């Protein structure tokens, strides 16, 4: 089977989620990937949605974070205050799964505004939602985002959620208890923070993608691992399940 760059990205993101983990899921790409993981290699993945659904088991992709299908078969439906205070804040969630409108080399995220000033932005984005605390308190964070110059910027217009701040010591200095972004999955490849500098480093390319392509899609001089490996292509089963999840007739 052939596949698109977006499909490769979603499959690679799904593979980041190990069976049995509790995963705090945002809507869009993260939700698609998390549901793909649950339908393939991780049937016991625990999906937590900020609407208060713990252990959601949707049979199709939810269109919104509060889709009724998330509540139908959830282990528990709790208040929004409870999901943040009892479940996220104490560090009970293994993986926070986030998207980004802008991302910098230390995996800090902007989803607030772009261009102009805060008071008078060129583009006003939705804002923080649950992301600042998901990025702070989950044991680790996985980011799924398309790689291009609009998104991979040298300097964020607004820091909505903290990755590694301005370097290796910032999370500890700020008192953030989770360990921070572990992986950034894009439509070109996979980036991981350098062990010492915490700067995002290209460690894998999806089949057919090149280092030059990754560099050209990044708004800072991209660090490249000494040995860049190639992502395993999507299996037929992964593609079949993903297409089934995304098919329009499965949409409500």
């Amino acid at each position, binding site marked *: 089977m052939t596949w698109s760059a977006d499909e490769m990205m979603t499959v690679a993101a799904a593979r980041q989620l190990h069976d049995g983990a509790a995963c705090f899921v945002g809507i869009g790409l993260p939700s698609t990937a998390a549901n793909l993981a649950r339908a393939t290699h991780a049937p016991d993945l625990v999906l937590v949605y900020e609407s208060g659904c713990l252990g959601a088991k949707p049979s199709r992709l939810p*269109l919104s974070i509060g*889709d*009724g299908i998330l509540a139908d078969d959830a282990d528990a*439906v709790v208040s*929004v205050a409870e999901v943040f*205070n009892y479940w996220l804040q104490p560090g009970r969630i293994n993986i926070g799964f986030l998207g980004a409108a802008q991302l910098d080399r230390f995996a800090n995220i902007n989803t607030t505004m772009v261009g102009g000033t805060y008071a008078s932005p060129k583009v006003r984005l939705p804002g923080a*939602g649950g992301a600042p*605390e998901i990025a702070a308190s989950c044991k680790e964070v996985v980011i799924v985002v398309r790689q291009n110059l609009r998104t991979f910027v040298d300097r964020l217009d607004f820091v909505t*959620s903290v990755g590694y701040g301005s370097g290796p010591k910032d999370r500890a200095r700020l008192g953030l208890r989770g360990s921070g972004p572990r992986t950034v999955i894009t439509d070109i490849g996979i980036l991981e923070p350098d062990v010492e500098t915490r700067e995002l480093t290209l460690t894998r390319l999806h089949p057919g993608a090149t280092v030059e392509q990754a560099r050209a899609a990044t708004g800072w001089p991209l660090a490249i691992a000494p040995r860049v490996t190639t992502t395993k292509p999507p299996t037929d089963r992964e593609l079949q399940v993903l297409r089934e999840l995304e098919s329009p007739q499965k949409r*409500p």
Partner: protein
Amino acid sequence: MAQICSLRQAISSLVSDGDVVAMEGFTHLIPFAAAHEIIRQERRNLTLVRMTPDVIYDQLIGMGCASGLVFSWGGNPGVGSLHRFRDAVENEWPQPIRLEEHSHAGMANRYVAGASGLPFAVLRGYTGTDLPTHTENIATIVCPFTGETLTAVPALCPDVGIVHAQRADRKGNVQMWGITGVQKEAVLASKRSIVTVEEIVDHLDPVPGQVMLPGWAVTAVVEAPAGAHPSYAHGYSVRDNDFYVQWDAVSRDRESFLAWMQAHVFNGSARIGASG
């Protein structure tokens, strides 16, 4: 005991120009009918409070009801931007809007503090982000027991809290279930409250996972069948996802937005599809 009345009566007697108004509902149970009544009664200079100002606040903002917005995520869930919200922030149309921006955890805790009669809430949040630079209502506090520095946000105590629920009985006891978000906290934090319901019944049969609001803690209860549309009421309706998708085109342009509001909120039934 809650007063059972019409929507027109509830809004005209409990919502005034200049009020701080919270309409909650986390994708589910969003009080659209009540918002449309506020639009029809032409309330002005409201400070609107809501964790997720989606289409309901896009409509209120675009119709000039709001001069302020306290929120944590403003978008069309699963679709994209809120064009009326963006037009207000980016171009001051139809009027400038004052933003007070938080995270979900911060907003939820602010309601909890309001409902608890406390002046502020404490949480681990916002640290290292640019939010505290632009939002005055975010501070740090040192734990008196451990010396740890934590984040404090002030209680939210709206003048009016408005939510939608599945059912109420004739004494105004309210029952809701499914995803219930921060509705209980929003009602208990507010000075006055309005609950619209799908139906008023003689007897409330228990439902697993229900949230009950006793009638003596609610100011007014209004029967408003399908009053959450295009959002939904678990057990009564499903979310009209097509409406949210179609809203993108309707709201992108000022003229088509105003024409839609005139046709559907002022002249007709807002229950039909956004483009219909």
